[in-house]
């Protein structure tokens, strides 16, 4: 039994809406349709200012192309199912959550603090337990990067509880 047949057999037991091919195609088409609807809200330019085509025409054409091609890949996936991907491990979700945490901390508290928090969380959950290395990557390294960007590139980081102390 070749791999394609094996894959087909494995996928047969699942209803179509649980299959990855369907989920991916559905998400692409769903998002594209929402964006397509958005293009109808774009302002229409009077003919005298119009440069060739309306500003909405080009994105509309692209979205129709994306939807059409996605339908084709879904149709092809029925004949030849995609390779089944391994389940995502805990560390992936932790890394993803740390991104959300980074956004929240950088918005509410401090940019530098957000980098430090993400570094320590990611490093710890990826397996680093030694305090020295955790401090190295969460405090020492971001500090070097911060000072480097600040002094060499003359960059001013957004205000925050720690950054304000530095700038004051």
């Amino acid at each position, binding site marked *: 039994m070749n791999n394609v047949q094996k894959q087909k057999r494995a996928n047969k037991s699942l209803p179509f809406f649980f299959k990855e091919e369907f989920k991916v195609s559905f998400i692409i088409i769903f998002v594209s349709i929402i964006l397509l609807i958005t293009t109808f809200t774009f302002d229409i330019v009077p003919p005298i200012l119009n440069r*060739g085509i309306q500003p909405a025409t080009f994105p509309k054409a692209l979205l129709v192309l994306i939807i059409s091609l996605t339908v084709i890949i879904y149709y092809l996936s029925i004949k030849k199912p995609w390779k089944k991907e391994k389940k995502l491990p805990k*560390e992936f979700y*932790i890394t993803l959550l740390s991104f959300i945490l980074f956004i929240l901390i*950088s918005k509410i508290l401090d*940019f530098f603090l957000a980098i430090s928090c993400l*570094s320590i969380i990611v490093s710890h959950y990826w397996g680093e337990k030694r305090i020295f290395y955790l401090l190295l*990557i969460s405090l020492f390294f971001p500090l070097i990067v911060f000072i480097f960007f600040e002094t060499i*590139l003359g*960059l001013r980081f*957004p205000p925050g509880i720690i950054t304000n102390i530095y700038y004051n």
Partner: protein
Amino acid sequence: MENLSLMMAPLFSSKLLLVLFFGTLFGLILGVLPGLGPTTGGALILPFTMTLDPLSAIVLLTAIYCAGTYGGAITAILINTPGTPAAAATCLDGYPLAQKGEAGRALGMATVSSTVGGIFSVIVLVFFAPMLAKLAYEFGQPEYFALAIFGLTMLASIGDGSPIKNLIAGAFGILISTIGKDFMTSIDRFTYGINELSVGIGFIPVVVGLFAISEMLTQSTLLDKVFKRVALKAVRLPSLKDYKLTWKTILRSSGIGSFIGVLPAEGGTVASLIGYSEAKRWSKKPEEFGKGSIEGIAGAEAANNAATGGAMVPTLALGIPGSATTAVILTGLIIHGVRPGPDLFKEQPEFLYGIFGSMLIANILFFIFGFFGAKIFARITLVPNKILWPMIFAISVCGTYSLSQSIIDVWIMLFFGVIGFFMRRYGFSVVPVIIGLILGELVEGTLRQSLVIFEGNWLMFLTRPIALTFFVLSVIALLFPLFKKKQNKIKI
């Protein structure tokens, strides 16, 4: 003769030599580290180039490009993991040969063939870029539109992965370029009332997100992977017997790589695979391929480094990137106020030939670094991911923020990181997104200007011979995967 002296100018500039030295060193480190590479590295270093003059900035980026492409071979041979996607074919024979206790010989061949391929491609660049630029003088808006369409369809035909998925990714990239104020009418598109989006989405947040952040997420799924490193005593120059066996392969792959590089697609990755399969096809001992064939290493490595110079041809002559890394270099040119295209050849020859000369020197420098320092560079792979990636995250965040000092850019970077991860997981290459993003404005702008010239008559495109040629080539490029599928694939 005058051009030759312009090419040699970097040799007499201590500043440029220093930039080349660090660029090559940095490129090698990036190439050695799996998951990084010249594209991500170039995008990360781009903000730093703002402190340099335009020539030094582009020299730095091109040195990273050349050395990074070679650096991938070190990891491919020693730990069976390509440092860059372009070194994937090198693993096939490099690692088996290293396992036989000939890691030094494998690395020596990779170093020599990469250098020859790289130098060959610079010669191609020196001769063909000005010729293409001269031809581009004949191009008007319709021709540029047709050319950009050809570039995008090439992704489907020779890009890595599924042709339809590549086209979807390319269209997605162009769609991203439409976000913000329409550059012709100032009408807001997909801005949803967010002021920061009205200037559009920057190239750097998207590139860093799609390459560095998505790779960080990918690495989080591979933490249980154990790398087995083969011991390396020293890099050995190939023997006379090896040279006799491989010189034809090296030259053939150099030609293939340069040609593939010129085509707007995935540059080195595709070039190395074709270079490798051609080496196998022409070999007297094809049965040795996959078991440690020295010809296999030479074929793959000469081709991927030859693609570097090739990819610079359309980038400099037409402003159309030949690969993802040249898209970063193109962004570097634009940021520094240099507009690539035929006028650049006429107005700033010293700038262009300075780049050509620097690429030549970079190829020689990575030969020296690779030959004497491969053992040290190989040790870099020992830095554990749990330490390396949080550091890369810090640099990515600060680098992305620094270009326009906008926190929104950092969020966009993270957003595209997540998108990039899922794209790669489900077989969509992220490279077409980058090419689409950089070509988006050109495609739309030239289309609309052409329609103004043609007074809205689309059929007028067919009356322009050059544009028509590109359209025909685009159709062929789209149909090519169908023909390719029917052919018996050369198993590699």
